[in-house]
């Protein structure tokens, strides 16, 4: 029996678990793993929220497939002052919300001010930069004033947090904004959200202001998109194979081969995939505060085997903290990244005074080396934790694994209880990643390493406020060198962007903005 047949049988067996979705000719169903807690662009940071918000709303500027080039969005053009403190955006005059209301500069000003308002408590407020003010110079001109230059501002303004929203809609819905509705300007409009079940959106018929990266700038070419939550990965694969779903990027790695082999399905990928899995050390905890121990641990982990055995060679082993394709990656580090070297790790541990006991595990000053790892339950982190645990046993380190349900894991990882934490994250550039994780001000979370370094902070400020690209790259490059040399993380793998889709659909191109492969969804259409 071939893989396709087995998949079909599995799908039949599992079909009872799924609510039947009538995928009409102009309706597509996208299956995904998890839902978001809400769809408020300023309060939801999950990928699950962003992938819906990119379709419900638009941003001032958009991001090209190369993840580096800024393209027009709601703003058809913009200018930047030489000192980098002011950006003037000229808005399109033909944009309207789903309820028919015209979008003007006042909506843009309101959206950004709500984003940075302390009362909104947005966890991604810093991404807006140090805002002095945002003013509407006229109905279609917005000036974005900064107190300090922010070299990444345009990249941040492409993200779902910068989606333009309707003030009246926010006032009308109150606490239900992003729960019971959101009036956006995107290619699709909110129809219904059943938490942890499905999100239904319909085509915005008036839409014609899509980013120029698409041949079709609007309206969308399907009538309806249904985002369906299917937590089990093999069920998602079976849903795609049997046509219950037409698109998904949440495919088990074991299924890539099956999708490629099946004439009814296709697989598309993006090389510019910036989503990295890593484990970080809390560097002020006993034992892991020793840089030699951290380096030895990094050397002991076999990222190549993880990529090959757990992910069937479909992911890229990571030795760097960000993808080496990302904006402002320091190419000088390519040759110095810590690679797998078990003998070297053992030697380093011996030199650092970590002696092996009769049980094969190492001790120092009578204390066994058993760092505690906190991470998430679920097959991904369980597999990764076991693989790293197995690698560390080979060098005499007994890592203790504690996995928590995602509902409480974030809280546990805001504590000082653990030595190592496991996580994955999306980013658009070196600056995006470094400013998030390595700023002293971000201790204890998201800087869970407790890395407090004045030089790092100064360099991050320099990179953030640089007006020239080369200055920014140099500053961030230096931070990259600093944190890699300190062995603060165990990089594990860079997740590729792969989208499986039905052969009934026209060829797609995978985006990777914030890990959302479909982005605006304007190229999704059925083959005639």
């Amino acid at each position, binding site marked *: 029996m071939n893989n396709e047949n087995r998949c079909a049988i599995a799908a039949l067996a599992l079909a009872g678990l799924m609510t039947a979705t009538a995928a009409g000719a102009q309706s597509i169903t996208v299956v995904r793993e998890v839902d978001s807690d809400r769809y408020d662009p300023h309060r939801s940071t999950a990928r699950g929220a962003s992938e819906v918000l990119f379709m419900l709303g638009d941003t001032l500027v958009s991001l090209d497939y190369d993840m580096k080039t800024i393209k027009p969005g709601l703003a058809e053009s913009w200018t930047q002052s030489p000192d980098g403190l002011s950006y003037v955006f000229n808005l399109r005059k033909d944009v309207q919300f789903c309820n028919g209301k015209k979008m003007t500069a006042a909506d843009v000003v309101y959206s950004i001010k709500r984003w940075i308002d302390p009362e909104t408590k947005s966890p991604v407020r810093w991404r807006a930069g140090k805002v002095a003010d945002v003013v509407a110079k006229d109905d279609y001109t917005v000036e974005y004033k900064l107190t300090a230059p922010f070299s990444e501002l345009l990249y941040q303004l492409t993200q779902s947090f910068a989606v333009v929203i309707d003030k009246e809609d926010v006032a009308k819905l109150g606490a239900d904004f992003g729960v019971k509705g959101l009036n956006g300007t995107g290619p699709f409009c909110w129809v219904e959200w059943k938490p942890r079940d499905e999100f239904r959106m319909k085509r915005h018929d008036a839409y014609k202001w899509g980013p120029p990266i698409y041949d079709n700038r609007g309206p969308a070419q399907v009538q309806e998109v249904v985002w369906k939550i299917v937590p089990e990965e093999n069920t998602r694969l079976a849903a795609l194979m049997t046509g219950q779903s037409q698109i998904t990027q949440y495919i088990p790695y074991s299924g890539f081969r099956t999708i490629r082999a099946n004439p009814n399905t296709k697989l598309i990928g993006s090389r510019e995939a910036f989503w990295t899995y890593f484990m970080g050390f809390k560097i002020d905890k006993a034992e892991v505060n020793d840089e030699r121990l951290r380096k030895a641990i990094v050397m002991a982990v076999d990222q190549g085997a993880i990529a090959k055995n757990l992910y069937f060679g479909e992911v890229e082993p990571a030795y760097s903290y960000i993808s080496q394709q990302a904006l402002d990656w320091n190419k000088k580090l390519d040759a110095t990244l810590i690679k797998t070297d078990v003998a070297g790790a053992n030697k380093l541990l011996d030199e650092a005074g970590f002696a092996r006991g009769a049980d094969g595990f190492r001790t120092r000053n009578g204390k066994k080396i058993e760092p505690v790892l906190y991470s998430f339950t679920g097959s991904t982190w369980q597999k990764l934790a076991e693989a790293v645990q197995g690698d560390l046993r080979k060098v005499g380190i007994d890592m203790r694994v504690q*996995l928590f349900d995602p509902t*409480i894991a974030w809280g546990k990882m805001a504590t000082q209880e653990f030595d190592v934490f496991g996580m994955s994250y999306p980013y658009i550039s070196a600056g995006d990643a470094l400013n998030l994780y390595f700023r002293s001000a971000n201790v204890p979370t998201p800087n869970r390493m407790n890395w407090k370094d004045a030089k790092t902070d100064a360099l991050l400020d320099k990179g953030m406020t640089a007006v020239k690209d080369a200055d920014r790259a140099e500053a961030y490059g230096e931070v990259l060198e600093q944190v890699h040399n300190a062995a603060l993380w165990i990089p594990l793998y860079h997740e590729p962007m792969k989208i499986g889709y039905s052969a009934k659909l026209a060829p797609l191109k995978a985006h990777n903005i914030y890990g959302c492969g479909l982005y605006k969804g304007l190229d999704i259409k059925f083959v005639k």
Partner: protein
Amino acid sequence: MTAIDIDQSLEALPARPGLWRRLPRDSAVWISGATLLAIVLAAIFAPLLAPYDPYETGQPPFIPPSFMDGGMPQFLLGTDNQGRDMLSRLLFGARTTLITGVLAIVFGGGTGVVLGIASAYFTRLSTPIMRVVDVMLSFPAILFGLAFAAVIGPGTTAVVIALSIAAVPDVARITRSTAVIIMGQEYMEAGRAIGLSDGYLITRYLALNCLGPVFVFLTLRFGQVILISAILSFLGLGARPPYAELGMMASQGRDALFFAPHIAVIPSFAIFIIVLCTNLLGDSLRDALDPRLRNS
């Protein structure tokens, strides 16, 4: 008045056949008993029997069992996705699963017996105890497992606590129903009349007479506990990595189901065998101890 010699009267009664003689002469019982015993012994002596360290990840991954194409003789049941020997992990996994089941039955069953007997003997306690038991009956074991895992973190402890609590109401109800019948017996009245203490009556007469039916129920319940334990581990709430547990092993094999099915199938089959054997034994014990079935 004629004095009655009680000892002589008792000797005159026909001797009750022993439990072993009352067990059905069905070969399935003995096969399942022997299989279960072998599994228990293998689990107990896992550190001696396992050919490899169950946590060692150095071997090639996805090797099928040695009796299948592509298998290697040194790995009798193949290796898993981390390159660990399946046979070694199966032995250690059975150990964890059986310990979890036994602990849950001992703690949950023990508590249930105490509550059931207390509610039958001390009639004033009957209503409050049984209403609490009714409330407990309304919570599924998996919900308990999720709640405990959320509070104390996933692990064997959370599973044992959840399963123990889940076992209490059923055992309490069975015990109480048996104890209420025994409380109506004349020898209990006689015991009270001659001034025997509550403790003596409960331990020497009430509890001992309840044990038969409760033991049979616990044997049947053991299979369910193993199954729920495996389900909880399958959901990621059970044993923590790298410790092996049969449900967790089955869960880990899902990714490779289409090309290395042995990783999920072997632990699943082990769960099936353990549950089947305990259920067969439980059925036979019930038949042997039930006088109505015995006479028929």
